[in-house]
């Protein structure tokens, strides 16, 4: 695509996003904000799974860590939510480091299972430590901003999302990103060229957990209610579906996937239980006809057009 057209397209998109709160109603604004949360979640998970090949199931758990740490700090120490989010991020990073060290030397399915176990353990603890976390009732926490306003919340979430995406993009384009992909392609070969594979994989794990922690904390304070639902496998699989359907290992894939799936799920919500079925069918269709996700489909189409 010519550079000019790409730039115009980007400008139009930015303008659309900036004006979105002013013409969208309350309901769609809410959906937009949730969508931003999923963009952060899926993009940061993609950094780990799509670029270094480590399929972690603990991503939602780290979002939960961010949310609960920030929420509890706000309740017990009256920490402003934005500072709390930073604290949540730090704790998520630390736990990410611990879990990373524990399971980074395992590859493939073992890493997936260990992270799955970690995630479920954390959820069960939060469910049952009623005194502290209020269990499934959830924690009532203050709004992200001193004054309640969905529009401001949208812009705050939007700014953070853009920042997170910028960080991801610069990592992917940096030498660290090259090392990520080398490790994903062939660990043995990467090590033989002087790449410290364990450190590189650990870096990806910690960076992506940190981002999940931040996203989770903002999400919790936006809802003003933090429940173990954030750590649930439901949410984890939704994030996974976004990245896979959008296109793993691409920058735009998770963004497109998040917008597509989040808005779609709002439309098919009325079918109740059947909406899960529809989701499954979409995932199946994507896996069958576009194994590289929607982005892969798009790239193939562009290539066909240009040749």
């Amino acid at each position, binding site marked *: 695509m010519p550079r000019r057209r790409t730039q115009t397209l980007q400008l139009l998109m930015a303008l659309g996003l900036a004006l979105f709160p002013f013409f969208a109603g309350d309901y769609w604004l809410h959906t937009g904000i949730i969508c931003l949360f999923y963009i952060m979640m899926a993009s940061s998970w993609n950094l780990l799974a799509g670029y270094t090949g480590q399929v972690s199931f603990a991503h939602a758990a780290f979002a939960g860590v961010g949310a609960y740490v920030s929420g509890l700090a706000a309740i017990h120490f009256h920490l402003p939510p934005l500072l709390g989010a930073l604290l949540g991020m730090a704790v998520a990073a630390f736990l990410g480091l611990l879990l990373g060290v524990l399971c980074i030397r395992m590859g493939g399915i073992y890493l997936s299972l260990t992270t799955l176990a970690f995630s479920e353990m954390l959820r069960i603890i939060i469910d049952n430590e009623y005194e502290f976390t209020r269990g499934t009732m959830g924690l009532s926490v203050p709004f992200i901003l001193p004054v309640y306003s969905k529009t401001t919340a949208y812009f705050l979430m939007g700014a953070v999302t853009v920042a997170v995406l910028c960080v991801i993009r610069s990592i992917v384009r940096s030498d*660290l990103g090259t090392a990520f*992909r080398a490790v994903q392609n062939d660990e043995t070969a990467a*090590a033989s*060229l002087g790449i410290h594979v364990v450190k590189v994989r650990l870096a990806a794990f910690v960076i992506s957990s940190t981002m999940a922690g931040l996203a989770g904390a903002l999400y919790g304070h936006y809802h003003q209610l933090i429940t173990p639902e954030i750590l649930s496998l439901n949410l984890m699989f939704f994030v996974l579906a976004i990245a896979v359907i959008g296109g793993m290992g691409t920058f735009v894939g998770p963004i497109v996937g998040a917008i597509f799936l989040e808005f779609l799920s709002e439309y098919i919500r009325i079918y109740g239980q059947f909406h899960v079925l529809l989701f499954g069918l979409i995932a199946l269709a994507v896996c069958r006809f576009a194994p590289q996700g929607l982005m892969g489909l798009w790239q193939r189409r562009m290539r066909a057009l240009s040749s």
Partner: protein
Amino acid sequence: MAFLEVQNVVKRFGGLVAVAGVSFEIEPGRIVGLIGPNGAGKTTLFNLIAGTFPCDEGAIRFCGEDLTRSRPYHVCRKGIARTFQIARPFHEMTCYENVVVGLIGRDGFRGETEARRRRVEELLEFVGLKDFMHTEARHLNLIQKKLLEIARALATRPKLVLLDEVLGGLNTGEILKALDLIRAIRDRFGVTILWIEHVMGALMQVVERLLVLDRGRLLCEGEPAAVVKDPRVIEAYLGEADD
């Protein structure tokens, strides 16, 4: 102080002794061939030197440093690079990026500079892959993949390169080109070469010394012409003569 000193190394896989106490030294600036029948332990010996497997016994010293317990990335940073018997380029990355990984591994994450870009181009030109700079490695043919591995290995600024069967599957014309390239690796980059090869005729034209492995032991070593006439070597390859 020896350049590379391998001292009585042993590697067992369960009951199988793949390398059963091998010792040798290599002087800098040489091209040394490593031959032996299939299963003699040549690639295992490479894996021990490169740190892919830990030695069960023995010691490996390189330029005065003990590398016996070193991990592969550390061995590489100390100046030993390698290629693989079955080429292992990063398939989803371009040739350019493949070489960059070698530079990153050796120098750390320093970011793209003009000097680095020139260096990558130079290396790709050296192995004859400049036209494929932005092609993903999975689109290369077998020979090109092997050439890419050599460029990538040289990017780590090695003092010693371990080449594992570069000539397998090449035709005569390609072999001649590859031989020139291998000589050039030594002459232009000043890199010592330890080279496993089955294509004997070609190997004999280039190497200055031969090591022969058989059933995990060093059978003999020395001048190539003398080594291939050694009755022990002939026996290892062809079996015992009937009297």
